[in-house]
């Protein structure tokens, strides 16, 4: 019976508050009382909102900046068979907020479908995701200048353990070595050049190229580590390749993520990237035992994603989007900005905060924001 009453407040209160009220008001409460509760809630909600003209960006900067001084400067080491590092603390925060493309320790968290998530063949699966290059299973590469050939000596033991045979390696190799005759002899693979003259120069180059031949696994995944999280097994990786991983059959594509924001923006779109920034920054702050309201991080993340791509809080990113010359100049490299503005004849309309501070005028913030309009009486 009170359902219609709740429906009335749907655009006045956020869904979460409404749900909590619905749950906590006893069903037998009189209609008038319920209305009274709802009206109080609306009033409280309106009072808790930021006022128009409130400089929320400043508040966010302070709220994130102060706890930032207490963060660690080190990287965290994963204990286990495989040595793995993950950047955390202040360096990680700087990395995310600068919107860097090449992050220090790219890493994925791969969630698995059943039955793999329960631990079935988890080790084998992890190793099948790990990238194997020819260099990883070869003992040595030899160049023979006289008969223009390259000899690759393979590690039997390693091959057996990772499930390779000479034949599978040959297959993988053949696609990359068109100008060579390839054949296997026991533990060795011998590549003989087809042409006589040009080969001598390129022999060494080709040898180096062959070391990087991709044989198995997901490109870019350098290290894998199966971990138990809660009651399911996941695979943590060093190195990141979201697109190829999501396309794997055993992987649960709805939860698997990477810590590379730009990669998420490319594969899943800008909205996913925004959410990823929030998750990453909030994760770091929580990990450090600090307490920052998530709304501040949401604001920063929204700012970084307004242009449709991920932009860092740097002079090349969001600051370069500002329309005012003086505001840009006040951030970093002032001379560069002033000169280029002078060259194209830019006009500054003094509509924002920094430029008004610079010329000693009231800033359009808080009570400085509204203007006063009066009707002038004509005599």
């Amino acid at each position, binding site marked *: 019976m009170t359902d219609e009453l709740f429906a009335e407040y749907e655009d006045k209160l*956020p*869904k979460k508050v409404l749900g909590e009220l619905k749950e906590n008001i006893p069903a037998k409460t009189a209609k008038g009382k319920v209305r009274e509760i709802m009206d109080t809630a609306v009033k409280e909600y309106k009072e808790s909102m930021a006022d128009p003209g409130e400089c929320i960006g400043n508040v966010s900067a302070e709220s994130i900046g102060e706890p930032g001084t207490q963060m660690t400067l080190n990287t965290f080491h994963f204990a286990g068979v495989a040595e793995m590092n993950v950047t955390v603390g202040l360096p990680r925060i700087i990395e995310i907020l600068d919107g860097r493309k090449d992050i220090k320790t790219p890493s994925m968290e791969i969630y698995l479908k059943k039955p793999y998530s329960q631990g079935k063949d988890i080790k084998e699966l992890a190793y099948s995701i790990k990238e194997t290059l020819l260099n990883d299973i070869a003992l040595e590469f030899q160049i023979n200048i006289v008969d223009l050939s390259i000899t690759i000596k393979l590690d039997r033991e390693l091959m057996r353990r990772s499930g390779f045979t000479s034949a599978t390696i040959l297959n993988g190799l053949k696609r990359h070595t068109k100008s060579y005759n390839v054949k296997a002899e026991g533990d060795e693979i011998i590549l003989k050049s087809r042409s006589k003259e040009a080969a001598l120069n390129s022999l060494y180059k080709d040898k180096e190229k062959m070391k990087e031949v991709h044989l198995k696994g997901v490109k870019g995944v350098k290290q894998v580590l199966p971990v138990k999280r809660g009651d399911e097994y996941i695979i943590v990786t060093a190195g990141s390749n979201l697109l190829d991983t999501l396309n794997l059959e055993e992987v649960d594509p709805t*939860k698997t993520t990477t810590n590379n924001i730009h990669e998420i923006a490319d594969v899943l*779109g800008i909205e996913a990237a925004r*959410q990823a920034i929030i998750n990453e920054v909030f994760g770091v702050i929580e990990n450090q035992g600090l307490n920052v309201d998530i709304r501040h991080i949401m604001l920063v993340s929204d700012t970084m994603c307004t242009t*449709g*791509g991920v932009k860092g809080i740097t002079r090349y990113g969001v600051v370069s989007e500002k329309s005012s010359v003086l505001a840009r100049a006040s951030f970093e490299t002032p001379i560069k900005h002033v000169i280029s503005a002078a060259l194209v004849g830019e006009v500054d309309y003094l509509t924002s905060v920094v430029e008004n501070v610079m010329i000693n005028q009231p800033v359009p913030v808080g009570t400085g924001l509204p203007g006063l309009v009066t009707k002038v009486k004509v005599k």
Partner: protein
Amino acid sequence: MAKKLNFDLHKHALVPKHAKCSDAEKKKILKHYQISVYDLPYIRKSDAALAEIDVKAGDVIKISRTSPTAGEAVYYRCVINE
């Protein structure tokens, strides 16, 4: 992009619901906020989440995010060419 994702990315936990606004809705939103279309935050036409929606520059996309503070938050983005 040469390679393609072979699953519906809207099922991914990070991706919120995207929907194109009709002209009437668009008008209502712009009137409510008293702005023009290009004052809204942008989303690129080539954005991965818009692959299955037929959009052109100037369209408004309604995004329904799940928010830890509000439960559900609605956000609007304007499609741009790029």
